[in-house]
């Protein structure tokens, strides 16, 4: 067993770190304040291959792997959780096509998403169907080689600027989750409408809107997989997505702790630097230990996926642990920094707000517990 990153992964990590420091740090706070994702930044993420990391070079992707993707998610999220989210959801959409698309669909839809030309989004959640995906009310009806889609999706990240919408709708309500199918809808399709940005507590720079489909017609060739494969397609993508969210949580926590440590070494109280107090040292040591534990779990899940092993439970445990850890660590970092930690001038306040969502999206902590207990055959 070797816990070292390969040289190639170290080189990627350097790229992600350099990129995040130079391109994201200077604009992260402003993006959060204005609740707007920079299209210039999106262009650069595409340009340098950060939006196509684990996808095959045969389709124009970067040819990396999920360990590399998780390194990227960590480095980017150290600086800005919203940028991590934007990348994660794009990747979620790509992986649906990568896993289940036909050759023709991969050429038509996956290639532009991973070669840097287009951005994707993923619409599963509905106003009345969150963790209970079978509660979907969106419907797709087939007539003469065309599906007509009707329904409303909520919290569709990236939808404000996405070109390709991977969305899920019932093709046979009587079959429950086995009646869900997946579709590829392109921006500008008549009847497709993206609402205003939903105002949120954290990851405020990311685009997150309600998307409505009103008699949107797509050719049958835009259906991913077979009719009824939708739930399987979504779950497989989310299994992989969780590795990215775990890495995002690790990044948020590490970014916050780095700031808090820097502050503790400078801040003087009672005539001493607060880093010289043992109470601070013990707290910092505990926080770093927990971050590292989460990082190891994340890397294990990523490596299992890259090695073609069953990673579902590893990914769920990594996300469950890392997202809780990130909330605890960011909260403690604000505490270490006192009043200044609570101020928007310091990025730790933003990290704490951003961390909360990692316990909710791409499967809540409770869904992670269901996945883990299920894998343990505890029924």
């Amino acid at each position: 067993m070797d816990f070292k990153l390969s040289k190639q992964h170290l080189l990627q990590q350097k790229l992600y770190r350099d990129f995040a420091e130079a391109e994201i740090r200077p604009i992260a706070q402003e993006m959060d304040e204005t609740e707007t994702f920079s299209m210039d930044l999106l262009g650069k993420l595409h340009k340098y291959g950060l939006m196509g990391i684990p996808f095959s070079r045969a389709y124009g992707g970067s040819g990396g792997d999920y360990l590399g993707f998780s390194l990227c998610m960590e480095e980017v999220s150290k600086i800005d959780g919203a940028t991590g989210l934007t990348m994660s959801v794009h990747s979620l959409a790509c992986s649906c096509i990568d896993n289940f698309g036909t050759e023709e669909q991969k050429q038509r839809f996956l290639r532009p998403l991973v070669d840097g030309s287009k951005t994707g989004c993923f619409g599963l959640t509905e106003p009345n169907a969150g963790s209970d995906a079978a509660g979907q009310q969106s419907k797709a009806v087939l007539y003469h080689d065309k599906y007509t889609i009707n329904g409303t999706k909520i919290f569709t990240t990236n939808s404000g600027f996405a070109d390709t919408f991977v969305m899920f709708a019932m093709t046979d309500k009587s079959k429950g989750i086995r009646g869900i199918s997946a579709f590829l809808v392109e921006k500008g399709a008549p009847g497709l409408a993206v609402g205003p940005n939903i105002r949120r507590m954290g990851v405020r720079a990311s685009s997150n809107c309600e998307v409505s489909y009103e008699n949107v017609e797509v050719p049958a060739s835009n259906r991913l997989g077979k009719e009824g494969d939708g739930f399987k397609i979504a779950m497989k993508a989310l299994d992989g997505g969780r590795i990215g969210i775990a890495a995002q949580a690790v990044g948020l926590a590490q970014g916050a702790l780095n700031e808090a440590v820097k502050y503790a070494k400078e801040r003087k109280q009672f005539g001493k630097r607060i880093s010289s107090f043992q109470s601070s040292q013990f707290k910092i040591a505990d926080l770093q230990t927990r971050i590292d534990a989460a990082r190891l779990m994340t890397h294990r899940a990523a490596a299992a996926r890259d090695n073609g092993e069953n990673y579902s439970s590893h990914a769920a445990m990594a996300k469950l642990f890392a997202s809780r850890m990130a909330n605890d660590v960011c909260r403690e970092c604000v505490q270490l920094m006192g009043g200044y930690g609570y101020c928007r001038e310091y990025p730790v306040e933003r990290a704490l707000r951003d961390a909360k969502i990692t316990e909710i999206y791409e499967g809540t902590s409770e869904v992670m517990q269901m996945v883990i207990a299920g894998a343990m055959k505890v029924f």
Partner: protein
Amino acid sequence: MKIVVCIKQVPDTSEVKLDSKTGRLMREGVPSIINPDDKSGIEAALRIKEETGGSVAVVSMGPPQADFALREALAMGCDEAYLITAKEFAGSDTFATAKILAGALGKIGFDLIITGRQAIDGDTAQVGPQIAENLNIPQVSYVEDIEVNGCALTVKRQFEDRYHILEVKTPCLLTALSELAPPRYMHVRGTVEAYEKEVQTLGFEDLAGTFDPSCIGLAGSPTSVYKSFGKKPKGAGEMHKNLSADEAVSLIISKMAERHII
């Protein structure tokens, strides 16, 4: 055009400290980077390749760890990489380094050589010009802009109080300022492909006959480091208020005399 860029892996001096007792650089835990001027040279070479075709090779002399800097250059888009490394080369000063690099460059072949102006861990600015002298080719240092016109280059050279616009025929050597071309990031695909390519190693035997062996390594180096020291931080200045012009002038004169400035 075959462009060869010489790069050096250096400690990131923004994070390096000097040991106050020994005067040596404390390199432990300090990240290594491609010297910034050299990285600008890589970018300039890649832009020339994109505009006019050809290839870009990158060369570094250093310990085996310098492989990582070469991989970064490959990930930015360079086509080939060469690592010049041998125990015989250890301890070489700029004179000896230029001899070895000139020998290697002769073997590799080139139309244009780009080096950085100087490395941030030594600031000598000597290696590039000495390579050109060893190879007996024209050189232009402190280059801020390059334009390719067939087999000639129009080059903007920074000077103390002006610029010189020079035309130079290839083969030649240019030393790049970091202002020449802000470097691009690696591409993720490049990082994957960088480790699928081979970094070719040239050792002492490979370069035999390209230089006089008595002129290289520690023994062949005419310079040796006598002492290194960090700059002392400047003390706080003195403030004198409410002086008349005449009083101020005489105070300044007396202070300057005190410090033997006048």
